[in-house]
């Protein structure tokens, strides 16, 4: 199949977006590489501390006027942004494929999910309304008002370079706050493209800023006294650290960490429908997704197990690997060589620990000629147990660990024993078993006959245990609460 037209023809020189202007950074530049082709597609700076300060100062200055802007006027900016996102839908999607490696279908899905958050946040005149009650005591009325806090920082991961900041940004600005986005240094182009559209949509200078950089820039943002709170999505160790830092500094925080998601397959599951879902769950986004299936727990006798494993193997071994801008491709490369090395390390560990390597993803069979630097094929391990590292640690790549359980209780027990609690799914035809799973499984995002339990924009993106640190979550009404203070007014008039 032909490769779709690449929207980036020459390497881009990325700039910071501060106070409504595109500013050249004085920081060191690093190459942003297309993981499929190995070509440099941009150079991104690691911003200086001074540049971070300038961004915070500009955002703080913008805040008083922006919070006074009527919600209807604020949401008009979001409506304009939504229109621009639709107009640029395909270009934005192709950029994601170029900088991340995911397939074009996956990129379009990511773009759509991002836009949905803009759409939901555009309902701010209703969403931000407070409450009131007359006569809480004789002649006394009480009301609750939601007010914005100031400037928030959004620290984005590499696996969804376009969408994740949009779990937070539209709600933050809709409620009258200002934001500073720090994209992942691995794939920052999507956020630059988004900021270009923000600029075109006419948000006032300083309301939405973007500062490139690595961990040092994130730390400078978190520690700056002008920042009221932070939203982070990434690994568990970093999420914990950010949670602690924000706690010490008295800042609000949403910190989403890693995952090790269990997918329970009951013997009454409809395998014909289940297997495609599992392929997306385990191998979609090349397994680099915090909602990806990691451990498939098969419940049932040997005959069902054999049927399942054969169907899973057949589907996984037929997945087409290659450059995501080829529409026939079903799995792109890992986002980076480091990521691939990490997965290769886990494959070695799995073999050493005694898991059976049923499908070896190290053998790469690509449709076209591309450098193998970041590519892997799907891997399947059988006979995995909860005490093996491949069964308990986040691999973040296209590796499925197949486990067995005698019954649903044992399968749910496995999810309880995991330190993570991001997502879990069950595939079954039984409402009773599904209810039990829903009731007892300690995970924030549950799927019933759904491989990727990704909450829509009007629901919170949940998470438990070591997968989430904080109280309120991104998206929907919880994001509105996170980005606002609740002020209660009790009044009596003589």
């Amino acid at each position, binding site marked *: *199949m032909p490769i779709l037209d690449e929207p980036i023809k020459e390497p881009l020189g990325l700039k910071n977006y501060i106070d409504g202007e595109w500013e050249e950074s004085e920081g060191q530049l690093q190459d942003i590489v297309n993981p499929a082709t190995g070509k440099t597609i941009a150079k991104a700076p690691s911003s200086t501390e001074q540049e971070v300060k300038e961004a915070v100062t500009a955002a703080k200055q913008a805040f008083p006027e922006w919070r006074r802007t009527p919600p209807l006027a604020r949401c008009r900016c979001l409506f304009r942004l939504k229109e621009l996102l639709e107009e640029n839908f395909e270009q934005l999607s192709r950029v994601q494929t170029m900088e991340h490696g995911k397939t074009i279908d996956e990129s379009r*899905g990511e773009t759509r999910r991002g836009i949905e958050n803009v759409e939901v946040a555009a309902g701010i005149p209703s969403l931000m309304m407070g409450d009131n009650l007359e006569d809480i005591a004789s002649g006394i009325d009480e009301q609750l008002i939601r007010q914005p806090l100031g400037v928030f920082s959004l620290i984005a991961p590499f696996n969804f370079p376009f969408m994740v900041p949009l779990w937070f940004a539209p709600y933050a600005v809709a409620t009258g706050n200002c934001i500073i986005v720090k994209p992942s240094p691995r794939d920052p182009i999507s956020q630059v493209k988004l900021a270009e559209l923000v600029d075109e949509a006419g948000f006032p200078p300083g309301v939405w800023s973007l500062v490139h950089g690595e961990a040092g820039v994130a730390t400078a943002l978190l520690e700056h006294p002008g920042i009221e709170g932070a939203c982070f999505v990434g690994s568990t160790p970093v999420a914990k650290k950010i949670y602690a830092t924000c706690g010490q500094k008295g800042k609000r925080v949403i910190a989403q960490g890693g995952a090790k998601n269990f997918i329970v397959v009951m013997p009454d599951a409809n395998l014909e429908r289940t297997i*495609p879902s599992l*392929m*997306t769950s385990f191998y979609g986004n090349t397994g680099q997704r915090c909602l990806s299936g990691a451990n498939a727990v098969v419940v049932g006798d040997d005959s069902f197990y054999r049927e399942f494993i054969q169907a899973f193997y057949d589907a996984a071994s037929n*997945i087409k690997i290659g450059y995501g801008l080829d529409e026939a491709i079903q799995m792109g490369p890992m986002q980076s060589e480091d990521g691939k090395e990490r997965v290769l390390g886990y494959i070695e560990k799995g073999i050493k620990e005694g898991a059976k390597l049923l499908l070896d993803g190290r053998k790469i069979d690509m449709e076209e000629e591309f450098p193998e630097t970041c590519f892997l094929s799907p891997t399947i391990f059988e006979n995995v147990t909860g005490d093996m590292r491949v069964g308990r640690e986040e691999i973040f790549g296209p590796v499925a660990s197949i486990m067995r359980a005698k019954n649903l209780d044992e399968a749910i027990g496995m999810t309880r024993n995991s330190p993570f609690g991001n997502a879990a799914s069950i595939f079954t035809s039984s409402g009773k078993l599904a209810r039990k799973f829903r009731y007892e499984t300690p995970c924030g995002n549950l799927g019933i006959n759904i491989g990727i339990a990704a909450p829509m924009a009007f629901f919170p993106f949940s998470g438990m245990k070591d997968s989430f640190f904080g109280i309120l979550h991104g998206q929907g009404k919880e994001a509105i609460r996170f980005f606002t203070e609740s002020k209660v007014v009790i009044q009596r008039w003589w």
Partner: protein
Amino acid sequence: MRLQTASQVVNFAAEIEEKLAKFYEQLAKKNPEQREFFLSLAKEGRKYKLWIQRAYHEVVTDALETGFSFEGLDTDEGLIEENLSENRNLPDILDRALDTEKRIQNFYQSAAQKSKSFLADVPRTFERVARRREKRREKLKSIS
């Protein structure tokens, strides 16, 4: 040609609708007495194209089985034969158009069947376009 991803199927559908719309526009030019009829078929085809693209773009999300739903959907490369309207008289062309509409209807029915695990909007749109194809065939028969 074997189509496997949602992107491939949607683009293929868009391509056949566009080709067929152009074919009916040519027929409209060559047959002034049936001009409005053929133009209405062309317009209708472009509407189907839009329905399909819209269904895909509005439900495609990172949670869906976008890469795997259409596993095994084979389609005939020559679903629409080249030069459909050249060097033939109108009854002959209409016969061929009827066959083409039937092949396209079969393609949509098959795509709907293969995409059952997708969010319902996509297979529903394919089914709807397949049903409309039947009506188009009846219309074509009425003038042939």
